[in-house]
């Protein structure tokens, strides 16, 4: 039997989550060691003896035996999961308890417990995202640093601190307590949203890395949707947003790896399966009374998904959704995106006026797409010189090579003095309105 791409990485997330329930959250490193050991054993055995019929079950059985060894050998010296108390001390109860927690039925719940634990309010949002990537998705520090375009040392520190905070929380989150579940749920939704955002808008120049992060967020939100308390209209809205946005991933970069703005994407490359899945989820989100930013952003994504091209797009609907988002969650980034939508409907001059009217534009001082938006609209008005000035500012503020390259190309277009804006419409995709890139925040 062949194993899927990322099989080990995903197994790592499942196994570490399950073993941590037994060893206790303060012994996370021990759970990680046991899993690493099982992987090494697989690496030594499978090539010589052939792939097992059920690789997943093989790994679980190997990890289980190793875990039982550790529990027997260390039980006098080590305190394991306090929730299990003396059950691990007696041979009568040890194996049944371990087998129960490692059973296939319990695995999803173990992952949820870990997911909720990683979103502990004591942890900063960047730390939450880094922990989810490390523990639940099985990425190493180097892999996370590469995906987030961050230094190894910075990510290592973030994860180490996060793990210390996890250990200090003493208990894994208990998904069986409905009040606690509902309390923590918004933080978990936000953590997954930021994880997706890191994949979609983040800095990594490698398309494959971005895809992986987006797929991980979609996989984890699907686990959340399988829990009776997790499948709220808001979670459905979040899942819809992810699916509708991820549908555009195949068209988002060209063959040279350049960013292709939403407005220029070849929509025939959009993933139709994801679009219809997203629309189905969006329908499921439309119950109850709560209207969240996820609902509004998913609705916007659905308007784009259903339009053949930018001309066919219902910009009035988009603007109305931005108005609602401004009411719910006012921010200069939302205002900027709203102004761009107005420019699409009413022309670039109106767009420039809207941007100039943004109340707290000083908060956008470091945001490259603020000058870029002005540059783009000036370009469309035929003011190449002014557009060039704005793009120069944007270039200085660019946060990664992909953005830098994008602005350089816009500058070249300005210098070519090509006054046919239709050929060079080059808007980016509006950044998710309520997200700050996780890497930008302070630890």
């Amino acid at each position, binding site marked *: 039997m062949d*194993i899927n791409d*990322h*099989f*080990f*990485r995903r*197994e*790592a997330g499942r196994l570490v989550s399950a073993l941590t329930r037994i060893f206790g959250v303060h012994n996370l490193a021990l759970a990680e060691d046991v899993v*690493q050991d099982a*992987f*090494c*054993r*697989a*690496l*030594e*055995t*499978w*090539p*010589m*003896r052939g*792939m097992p019929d059920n690789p997943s079950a093989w790994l679980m059985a190997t990890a289980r035996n190793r875990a039982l060894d550790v529990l027997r050998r260390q039980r006098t010296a080590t305190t394991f999961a306090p929730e299990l108390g003396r059950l691990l001390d007696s041979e009568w109860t040890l194996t049944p308890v371990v087998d129960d927690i490692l059973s296939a039925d319990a695995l999803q719940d173990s992952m949820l417990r870990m997911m909720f634990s990683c979103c502990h309010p004591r942890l900063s949002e960047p730390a939450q995202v880094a922990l989810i990537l490390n523990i639940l998705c*099985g*990425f*190493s520090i*180097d*892999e996370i640093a590469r995906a987030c375009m961050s230094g190894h040392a910075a990510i290592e520190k973030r994860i180490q601190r996060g793990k210390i905070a996890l250990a200090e929380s003493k208990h894994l989150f208990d998904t069986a307590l409905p009040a606690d579940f509902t309390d923590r749920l918004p933080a978990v939704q936000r953590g997954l949203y930021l994880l997706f955002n890191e994949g979609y808008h983040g800095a990594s120049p490698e398309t494959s890395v971005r895809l992986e992060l987006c797929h991980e967020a979609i996989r984890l939100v699907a686990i959340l949707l399988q829990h009776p308390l997790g499948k709220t209209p808001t979670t459905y809205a979040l899942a819809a947003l992810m699916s509708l946005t991820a549908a555009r991933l195949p068209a988002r970069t060209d063959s040279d790896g350049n960013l292709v703005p939403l407005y220029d994407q070849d929509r025939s490359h959009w993933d139709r399966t994801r679009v219809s899945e997203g629309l189905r989820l969006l329908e499921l989100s439309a119950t109850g009374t709560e209207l969240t930013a996820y609902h509004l952003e998913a609705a916007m994504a659905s308007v784009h998904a259903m339009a053949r091209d930018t001309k066919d797009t219902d910009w009035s609907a988009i603007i109305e959704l931005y108005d609602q988002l401004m009411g719910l969650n006012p921010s200069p980034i939302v205002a900027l995106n709203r102004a761009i939508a107005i420019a699409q409907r009413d022309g670039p001059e109106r767009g420039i006026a809207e941007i100039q009217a943004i109340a707290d534009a000083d908060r956008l001082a470091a945001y490259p797409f603020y000058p870029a938006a002005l540059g783009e609209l000036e370009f469309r008005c035929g003011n190449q010189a002014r557009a060039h000035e704005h793009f120069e500012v944007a270039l200085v503020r660019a946060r990664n090579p992909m953005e830098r390259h994008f602005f350089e190309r816009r500058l070249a277009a300005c210098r070519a003095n090509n006054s046919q804006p239709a050929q060079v419409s080059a808007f980016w995709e509006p950044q998710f309105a309520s997200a700050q890139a996780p890497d930008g925040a302070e630890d």
Partner: protein
Amino acid sequence: MSEFLFLYRGSLGYTKSPEQMQKSMQKWVAWFKDLGEKGVIKNPGNPLERSGKVVRGHNKDVHDGPFAETKDLINGYTLVDAATLDQAVELSKGCPIFEDGGAVEVRPIAKL
């Protein structure tokens, strides 16, 4: 035809990420498949536990072992058929262990 023992020495990557382990796995599987297709595998062998005992001397002292450094530790073996030592050495060169700084010791089985 003669028989040769491949002894795998050194770590297969105890510090690797799951993704890297999977890549190694695919390389090892591909290498074994290649050897299999060449029809040279006499016995695919087994991995060895990393811990064990060493019994030594007249007094048959028992120590926790093996003593080798991790990089020299034997962690598996395979028995292959080859015409000559040189040919067996050539076969061993496809082993992915070299990428991890490991070694393959190629030892002819003595003909009595």
